[in-house]
């Protein structure tokens, strides 16, 4: 349970891990070579990765389980959509979505953070669904259950400086990639910062944090708002991808995706949610070929993870695979 490790333990493993990340970077950069379907899939994976990393800041680093993150994702997405429908500036759409999500997170967070773990989970669920029902009912603004369609994938425009058309899927993919990496990097910096240390303190012992003179509620709210901003950014990025916004992105079954991705990849690590997001989509694409019962499959996966593999994939790699590989290399007379 160390927020400071990536996939590393000893020197050999550090190099292996670095190689893995490098390979991932190369793969991500060359995705557009593989056609629209792969681009679209990877973009979704990246968006979920950002979404999940935000969730994980709350879960693994502050000790708060939130079932309502989809609410902020949807706020980010819908506000972005509304802005794009009014004036075609991707920059404004994304910024607007992020800020809106942050404000909503601040307000809802204020009501939720004073409560214990269980209440918090229940309340975030309820508030997330409240946003869902607002979106559902407010037809005039959100299009109700039809959602918003025909959202333009507006050009990225900084007036007087540059204009980048985004109609091309590959180009938009790179935009998503850049912003997701920036977002995840920002949260990475937060985790390693003084603020991150404080949040981990709250996870370890709230009473101790209180007795060193810090308000637990204030810091939970900060963490909740950051997670809300990340979710909002993810939502704002997703809407121009499919050029539409639907209420499904506010449903609590969607809130479950970052939760499961984190569990799958490995909670209590930083890389877990990222790995888990990629795995999540791969599994989904495969399973959907064979059966329409994706939810049940997911449910079974969740049960298996909770009962047997709480460390997720990252812990399997870290604790079993990497030592195995390291040992094998040493046996072959590696330099070590």
């Amino acid at each position, binding site marked *: 349970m160390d927020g400071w490790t990536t996939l590393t333990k000893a020197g050999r493993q550090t190099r292996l891990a670095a190689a893995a990340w490098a390979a991932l970077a190369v793969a991500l950069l060359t995705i557009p070579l593989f056609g629209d379907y792969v681009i679209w899939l990877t973009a979704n994976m990246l968006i979920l990765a950002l979404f999940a990393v935000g969730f994980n800041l709350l879960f693994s680093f502050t000790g708060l389980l939130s079932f309502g993150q989809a609410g902020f994702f949807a706020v980010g997405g819908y506000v972005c959509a509304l802005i794009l429908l009014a004036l075609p500036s991707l920059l404004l759409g994304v910024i607007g979505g992020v800020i809106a999500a942050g404000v909503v997170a601040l307000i809802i967070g204020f009501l*939720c953070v004073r409560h214990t773990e269980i209440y918090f989970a229940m309340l975030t669920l*309820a508030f997330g669904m409240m946003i869902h029902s*607002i979106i559902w009912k407010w037809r005039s603004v959100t299009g109700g259950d039809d959602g918003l369609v025909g959202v333009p994938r507006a050009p990225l425009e900084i007036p007087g400086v540059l204009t980048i058309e985004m109609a091309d899927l590959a180009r938009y993919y790179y935009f998503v990639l850049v912003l997701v990496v920036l977002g995840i990097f920002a949260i990475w910096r937060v985790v390693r910062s003084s603020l991150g240390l404080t949040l981990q303190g709250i996870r370890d012992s709230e009473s101790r944090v209180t007795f060193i003179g810090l308000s637990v509620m204030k810091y939970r709210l900060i963490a909740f708002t950051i997670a809300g901003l990340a979710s909002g950014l993810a939502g704002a990025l997703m809407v121009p991808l499919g050029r539409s916004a639907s209420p499904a992105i506010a449903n*609590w079954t969607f809130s479950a995706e970052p939760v499961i991705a984190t569990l799958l990849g490995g909670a209590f690590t930083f890389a877990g949610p990222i790995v888990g997001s990629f795995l999540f989509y791969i599994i989904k694409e495969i399973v959907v070929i064979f059966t329409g019962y994706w*939810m049940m499959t997911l449910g079974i996966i969740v049960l298996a993870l*909770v009962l047997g593999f*709480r460390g997720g994939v990252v812990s399997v790699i870290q604790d079993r695979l990497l030592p195995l590989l390291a040992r094998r290399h040493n046996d072959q007379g590696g330099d070590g």
Partner: protein
Amino acid sequence: MTFDALVYQGLIGVSLAMYLWLLAAGLTIAFGVLGVVNFAHGSLYMLGGYFAFTFYLTLQMNFWLSLLLAAASGAVIGSIMERFFLRYIYHLDLAYQILLTFGFVLIFADAARIFWGGIPLIPPMPEIFDSTVPIVGRPFPVYNLFVIFVGIAASALLWLLLDKTNWGETVRASASDREMAGALGINIPRLFTIVFAFAAMLAALSGALGTPVRAMTPGIGTSVIIDVFIVTVIGGLGNLPGAFVAALIIGLMKAYGVLLFPDADLFMTYLVMTLVLLFRPKGLLGGR
């Protein structure tokens, strides 16, 4: 709104409250004793409804029998959930227990789709209830009165069970101090299974009761759980009388809301929850 409408709609609200009360009672009892909030509680409501539908319509059983069997099926599913899954993770962080029950939500949702299809199911009203009774000069469905009766009867039975029987005392002791109860020789693991099954039975009963009036869909589990959570938050987690009062409030709000603010009725319950959270965070009557 006239006085007549007030009374009429109020009674509708009370009958709505009874469904919520049965659900909330189960959730609260399970939480009080096991310390776990069962996110799949709404799914058990859904399964109860589906089972009742099958027993009553497909298998042509007697309505009463269908109700009982549906409730019993809920108990069986609940005990399986606890005995073979939940039991192994009590020592873990609360989050994992919540996640486990959430896994069941996903499984049950698709299971419902597999066995009963995705289309809404609604069986015919049993004949003895298929009539109305004039209340304040307007025809009031007898079935709603029946539901109110069941709700009150259940409350009385629950109170008797918890307050007046040995088993009830055991349950309350374990809720109060699990370790001590175990040290006194109470078979805690078995008690947990029984209590969890009991809570599941209440949920399934609530769903079964709802079948003649409310169409069953696989999505109903997730929408019902929100209502139950709101009721529980307003009433105070672990507080049984609080749950009753909260269920009444929400039931009445829904009934009056439909009349007064037809577009915002969903929102009303959230509003009440927000107000309670702001001013009485522990619930109207206090909780844990």
